[in-house]
Protein backbone atom coordinates (compact mmCIF):
# COMPACT_ATOMS: atom_id res chain seq x y z
CA UNK A 1 0.00 0.00 0.00
CA UNK A 2 1.35 3.39 -0.93
CA UNK A 3 -1.23 6.07 -0.12
CA UNK A 4 -0.87 9.21 -2.19
CA UNK A 5 -0.06 11.98 0.29
CA UNK A 6 -1.13 14.65 -2.22
CA UNK A 7 -4.89 14.77 -1.73
CA UNK A 8 -6.57 11.50 -0.72
CA UNK A 9 -9.80 13.33 0.15
CA UNK A 10 -10.03 14.57 -3.45
CA UNK A 11 -10.14 10.95 -4.65
CA UNK A 12 -12.75 10.10 -2.02
CA UNK A 13 -15.08 12.89 -3.12
CA UNK A 14 -14.38 12.19 -6.81
CA UNK A 15 -15.49 8.57 -6.28
CA UNK A 16 -18.72 9.55 -4.51
CA UNK A 17 -19.42 12.25 -7.09
CA UNK A 18 -18.82 9.80 -9.97
CA UNK A 19 -21.10 7.26 -8.27
CA UNK A 20 -24.05 9.65 -8.06
CA UNK A 21 -23.42 11.23 -11.47
CA UNK A 22 -23.71 7.77 -13.11
CA UNK A 23 -26.95 7.17 -11.17
CA UNK A 24 -28.42 10.53 -12.16
CA UNK A 25 -27.52 9.96 -15.81
CA UNK A 26 -29.37 6.62 -15.65
CA UNK A 27 -32.34 8.26 -13.87
CA UNK A 28 -32.51 10.99 -16.56
CA UNK A 29 -32.27 8.32 -19.27
CA UNK A 30 -35.25 6.46 -17.70
CA UNK A 31 -37.27 9.67 -17.23
CA UNK A 32 -36.76 10.63 -20.90
CA UNK A 33 -37.88 7.20 -22.05
CA UNK A 34 -40.92 7.44 -19.81
CA UNK A 35 -41.92 10.87 -21.15
CA UNK A 36 -41.46 9.63 -24.74
CA UNK A 37 -43.71 6.64 -24.03
CA UNK A 38 -46.33 8.88 -22.41
CA UNK A 39 -46.28 11.09 -25.53
CA UNK A 40 -46.70 7.97 -27.71
CA UNK A 41 -49.65 6.83 -25.58
CA UNK A 42 -51.29 10.27 -25.85
CA UNK A 43 -50.84 10.23 -29.64
CA UNK A 44 -52.36 6.75 -29.83
CA UNK A 45 -55.33 7.79 -27.68
CA UNK A 46 -55.97 10.77 -29.97
CA UNK A 47 -55.73 8.54 -33.03
CA UNK A 48 -58.22 6.07 -31.53
CA UNK A 49 -60.65 8.88 -30.60
CA UNK A 50 -60.37 10.23 -34.13
CA UNK A 51 -61.21 6.84 -35.57
CA UNK A 52 -64.19 6.41 -33.25
CA UNK A 53 -65.57 9.79 -34.33
CA UNK A 54 -65.15 8.91 -38.00
CA UNK A 55 -66.82 5.53 -37.47
Amino acid at each position, binding site marked *: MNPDPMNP*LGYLFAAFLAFWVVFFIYAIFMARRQSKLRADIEALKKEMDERKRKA
Partner: protein
Amino acid sequence: MTQDSLPGRTTLLSRVFLALAFIGILVSLALIFLWVPDERQQGAVYRIFFFHVPAGLLSFAAFAVVFVASIAYLWKNNRAWDMVAHSAAELGVVFATLSLTTGSIWARPIWGVWWTWDPRLTTMLILWLIYVGYLMLRAYGADDTRVSRFASVVGIIGFVDVPIVFFSIHWWRTQHPQPVLAPGGNFGLTPEMTVTFLIALAALAFLSAHLLLERLALRRMSADVKEIRQALSAEEGA
Protein backbone atom coordinates in the same frame (compact mmCIF):
# COMPACT_ATOMS: atom_id res chain seq x y z
CA MET B 1 -45.57 -15.27 -14.43
CA THR B 2 -47.68 -13.66 -17.13
CA GLN B 3 -46.91 -10.47 -19.01
CA ASP B 4 -49.98 -8.93 -17.34
CA SER B 5 -48.58 -9.65 -13.89
CA LEU B 6 -45.75 -7.19 -14.55
CA PRO B 7 -46.33 -3.72 -13.16
CA GLY B 8 -47.52 -1.23 -15.77
CA ARG B 9 -46.76 1.82 -13.68
CA THR B 10 -45.09 2.77 -10.43
CA THR B 11 -46.36 0.38 -7.79
CA LEU B 12 -46.66 0.89 -4.05
CA LEU B 13 -43.86 -1.65 -3.56
CA SER B 14 -41.57 0.34 -5.84
CA ARG B 15 -42.27 3.52 -3.86
CA VAL B 16 -41.61 1.72 -0.57
CA PHE B 17 -38.26 0.51 -1.97
CA LEU B 18 -37.40 4.08 -3.04
CA ALA B 19 -38.27 5.49 0.40
CA LEU B 20 -36.18 2.81 2.15
CA ALA B 21 -33.29 3.45 -0.27
CA PHE B 22 -33.45 7.20 0.34
CA ILE B 23 -33.37 6.79 4.14
CA GLY B 24 -30.67 4.12 3.94
CA ILE B 25 -28.45 6.22 1.67
CA LEU B 26 -28.72 9.28 3.94
CA VAL B 27 -27.92 7.15 7.01
CA SER B 28 -25.02 5.38 5.29
CA LEU B 29 -23.53 8.66 4.02
CA ALA B 30 -23.70 10.10 7.55
CA LEU B 31 -22.05 6.97 8.96
CA ILE B 32 -19.39 6.87 6.23
CA PHE B 33 -18.33 10.49 6.66
CA LEU B 34 -19.03 11.10 10.36
CA TRP B 35 -18.82 7.82 12.25
CA VAL B 36 -16.45 5.16 10.88
CA PRO B 37 -12.77 5.59 11.74
CA ASP B 38 -10.02 5.93 9.12
CA GLU B 39 -8.39 2.70 7.99
CA ARG B 40 -4.86 2.17 9.37
CA GLN B 41 -2.99 1.97 6.05
CA GLN B 42 -5.28 3.72 3.57
CA GLY B 43 -6.54 6.61 5.68
CA ALA B 44 -9.84 8.18 4.52
CA VAL B 45 -9.76 6.88 0.92
CA TYR B 46 -10.86 3.37 1.96
CA ARG B 47 -14.39 4.83 2.48
CA ILE B 48 -14.89 4.38 -1.29
CA PHE B 49 -15.30 0.67 -0.55
CA PHE B 50 -18.66 1.28 1.22
CA PHE B 51 -20.28 1.94 -2.18
CA HIS B 52 -17.76 0.17 -4.45
CA VAL B 53 -18.26 -3.32 -2.98
CA PRO B 54 -22.11 -3.15 -2.81
CA ALA B 55 -22.15 -1.93 -6.43
CA GLY B 56 -20.10 -4.96 -7.48
CA LEU B 57 -22.26 -7.38 -5.47
CA LEU B 58 -25.48 -5.88 -6.85
CA SER B 59 -24.18 -6.16 -10.41
CA PHE B 60 -23.61 -9.90 -9.75
CA ALA B 61 -27.16 -10.16 -8.35
CA ALA B 62 -28.59 -8.40 -11.42
CA PHE B 63 -26.68 -10.72 -13.77
CA ALA B 64 -27.97 -13.70 -11.74
CA VAL B 65 -31.50 -12.41 -12.43
CA VAL B 66 -30.62 -12.20 -16.16
CA PHE B 67 -29.36 -15.81 -16.00
CA VAL B 68 -32.50 -17.19 -14.30
CA ALA B 69 -34.94 -15.10 -16.37
CA SER B 70 -33.17 -16.06 -19.64
CA ILE B 71 -33.43 -19.77 -18.80
CA ALA B 72 -37.10 -19.29 -17.87
CA TYR B 73 -37.74 -17.43 -21.15
CA LEU B 74 -36.12 -20.14 -23.29
CA TRP B 75 -37.96 -22.82 -21.34
CA LYS B 76 -41.44 -21.26 -21.03
CA ASN B 77 -41.29 -18.99 -24.10
CA ASN B 78 -42.97 -16.24 -22.08
CA ARG B 79 -42.09 -12.64 -22.99
CA ALA B 80 -42.48 -11.51 -19.37
CA TRP B 81 -39.26 -13.38 -18.49
CA ASP B 82 -37.52 -11.78 -21.45
CA MET B 83 -38.53 -8.34 -20.16
CA VAL B 84 -37.17 -9.20 -16.69
CA ALA B 85 -33.85 -10.34 -18.21
CA HIS B 86 -33.51 -7.21 -20.36
CA SER B 87 -34.30 -4.86 -17.45
CA ALA B 88 -31.95 -6.65 -15.04
CA ALA B 89 -29.11 -6.61 -17.59
CA GLU B 90 -29.39 -2.83 -17.89
CA LEU B 91 -29.28 -2.43 -14.12
CA GLY B 92 -26.36 -4.87 -13.87
CA VAL B 93 -24.36 -2.81 -16.38
CA VAL B 94 -25.07 0.38 -14.38
CA PHE B 95 -23.81 -1.24 -11.15
CA ALA B 96 -20.80 -2.82 -12.87
CA THR B 97 -19.93 0.63 -14.31
CA LEU B 98 -20.16 2.10 -10.80
CA SER B 99 -17.97 -0.65 -9.36
CA LEU B 100 -15.31 -0.27 -12.08
CA THR B 101 -15.31 3.55 -11.89
CA THR B 102 -15.08 3.81 -8.10
CA GLY B 103 -12.49 0.99 -8.02
CA SER B 104 -10.34 2.86 -10.51
CA ILE B 105 -10.55 6.09 -8.47
CA TRP B 106 -9.61 4.12 -5.31
CA ALA B 107 -6.67 2.46 -7.11
CA ARG B 108 -5.01 5.75 -8.09
CA PRO B 109 -3.98 6.91 -4.58
CA ILE B 110 -3.50 3.37 -3.20
CA TRP B 111 -1.76 1.53 -6.06
CA GLY B 112 -0.47 4.64 -7.87
CA VAL B 113 -2.29 3.71 -11.12
CA TRP B 114 -5.83 4.16 -12.42
CA TRP B 115 -5.89 0.68 -13.92
CA THR B 116 -3.85 -2.51 -13.86
CA TRP B 117 -4.46 -5.80 -15.68
CA ASP B 118 -5.06 -7.60 -12.39
CA PRO B 119 -7.21 -10.80 -12.62
CA ARG B 120 -10.11 -9.28 -10.62
CA LEU B 121 -10.15 -6.04 -12.61
CA THR B 122 -9.71 -7.79 -15.97
CA THR B 123 -12.45 -10.39 -15.38
CA MET B 124 -14.80 -7.63 -14.13
CA LEU B 125 -14.10 -5.57 -17.27
CA ILE B 126 -14.83 -8.67 -19.41
CA LEU B 127 -18.12 -9.14 -17.52
CA TRP B 128 -19.04 -5.49 -18.19
CA LEU B 129 -18.18 -5.88 -21.90
CA ILE B 130 -20.28 -9.08 -22.19
CA TYR B 131 -23.40 -7.36 -20.85
CA VAL B 132 -22.78 -4.12 -22.79
CA GLY B 133 -22.70 -6.41 -25.85
CA TYR B 134 -25.95 -8.00 -24.63
CA LEU B 135 -27.61 -4.55 -24.43
CA MET B 136 -26.27 -3.58 -27.87
CA LEU B 137 -27.77 -6.78 -29.26
CA ARG B 138 -31.12 -5.95 -27.62
CA ALA B 139 -30.99 -2.43 -29.03
CA TYR B 140 -31.08 -3.89 -32.54
CA GLY B 141 -34.42 -5.58 -31.99
CA ALA B 142 -35.93 -5.44 -28.52
CA ASP B 143 -39.17 -7.09 -29.58
CA ASP B 144 -37.80 -9.46 -32.18
CA THR B 145 -38.19 -13.05 -30.93
CA ARG B 146 -34.99 -14.22 -32.60
CA VAL B 147 -33.00 -11.39 -31.00
CA SER B 148 -34.59 -12.19 -27.63
CA ARG B 149 -33.62 -15.85 -27.92
CA PHE B 150 -30.07 -15.04 -28.98
CA ALA B 151 -29.76 -12.45 -26.19
CA SER B 152 -31.00 -15.07 -23.69
CA VAL B 153 -28.19 -17.39 -24.75
CA VAL B 154 -25.66 -14.53 -24.32
CA GLY B 155 -27.18 -13.74 -20.90
CA ILE B 156 -26.81 -17.37 -19.78
CA ILE B 157 -23.28 -17.90 -21.12
CA GLY B 158 -22.15 -14.45 -19.91
CA PHE B 159 -23.08 -15.38 -16.34
CA VAL B 160 -20.25 -17.93 -16.35
CA ASP B 161 -17.90 -14.97 -15.82
CA VAL B 162 -19.56 -13.98 -12.51
CA PRO B 163 -18.06 -16.81 -10.39
CA ILE B 164 -14.75 -16.28 -12.23
CA VAL B 165 -14.77 -12.59 -11.14
CA PHE B 166 -15.80 -13.54 -7.61
CA PHE B 167 -13.17 -16.26 -7.10
CA SER B 168 -10.40 -14.61 -9.16
CA ILE B 169 -8.81 -13.23 -5.98
CA HIS B 170 -8.53 -16.80 -4.64
CA TRP B 171 -7.46 -18.51 -7.86
CA TRP B 172 -4.72 -16.09 -9.00
CA ARG B 173 -2.15 -13.83 -7.41
CA THR B 174 -3.82 -10.45 -7.25
CA GLN B 175 -3.33 -6.97 -5.89
CA HIS B 176 -7.04 -6.66 -5.14
CA PRO B 177 -7.99 -6.73 -1.41
CA GLN B 178 -9.44 -9.99 -0.07
CA PRO B 179 -13.22 -10.38 0.46
CA VAL B 180 -14.49 -8.14 3.25
CA LEU B 181 -17.24 -10.29 4.75
CA ALA B 182 -16.42 -13.80 3.56
CA PRO B 183 -15.37 -16.37 6.16
CA GLY B 184 -11.66 -15.95 6.75
CA GLY B 185 -11.65 -12.47 5.20
CA ASN B 186 -8.85 -10.50 6.77
CA PHE B 187 -9.65 -6.97 5.62
CA GLY B 188 -9.80 -5.97 9.28
CA LEU B 189 -13.26 -4.38 9.44
CA THR B 190 -14.16 -2.92 12.80
CA PRO B 191 -17.78 -3.41 14.04
CA GLU B 192 -18.55 0.21 12.97
CA MET B 193 -17.28 -0.50 9.46
CA THR B 194 -19.30 -3.74 9.23
CA VAL B 195 -22.55 -2.03 10.31
CA THR B 196 -21.97 0.87 7.89
CA PHE B 197 -21.18 -1.54 5.05
CA LEU B 198 -24.35 -3.57 5.67
CA ILE B 199 -26.53 -0.41 5.78
CA ALA B 200 -24.99 0.87 2.52
CA LEU B 201 -25.51 -2.56 0.91
CA ALA B 202 -29.17 -2.68 2.03
CA ALA B 203 -29.79 0.91 0.83
CA LEU B 204 -28.35 0.20 -2.62
CA ALA B 205 -30.23 -3.11 -2.79
CA PHE B 206 -33.51 -1.23 -2.17
CA LEU B 207 -32.52 1.32 -4.81
CA SER B 208 -31.77 -1.43 -7.33
CA ALA B 209 -35.10 -3.17 -6.56
CA HIS B 210 -36.90 0.16 -7.17
CA LEU B 211 -35.02 0.75 -10.44
CA LEU B 212 -35.71 -2.81 -11.63
CA LEU B 213 -39.46 -2.42 -11.02
CA GLU B 214 -39.46 0.99 -12.78
CA ARG B 215 -37.50 -0.35 -15.72
CA LEU B 216 -39.89 -3.31 -16.00
CA ALA B 217 -42.85 -0.92 -15.99
CA LEU B 218 -41.27 1.04 -18.84
CA ARG B 219 -40.55 -2.14 -20.79
CA ARG B 220 -44.17 -3.23 -20.34
CA MET B 221 -45.48 0.18 -21.44
CA SER B 222 -43.26 0.04 -24.51
CA ALA B 223 -44.61 -3.43 -25.43
CA ASP B 224 -48.21 -2.21 -24.92
CA VAL B 225 -47.64 0.82 -27.19
CA LYS B 226 -46.20 -1.46 -29.86
CA GLU B 227 -49.17 -3.84 -29.62
CA ILE B 228 -51.71 -0.99 -29.90
CA ARG B 229 -49.85 0.42 -32.91
CA GLN B 230 -49.90 -2.98 -34.60
CA ALA B 231 -53.64 -3.34 -33.87
CA LEU B 232 -54.32 0.10 -35.33
CA SER B 233 -52.27 -0.66 -38.46
CA ALA B 234 -54.12 -3.98 -38.89
CA GLU B 235 -57.45 -2.17 -38.50
CA GLU B 236 -56.36 0.41 -41.06
CA GLY B 237 -55.34 -2.32 -43.52
CA ALA B 238 -58.64 -4.22 -43.11
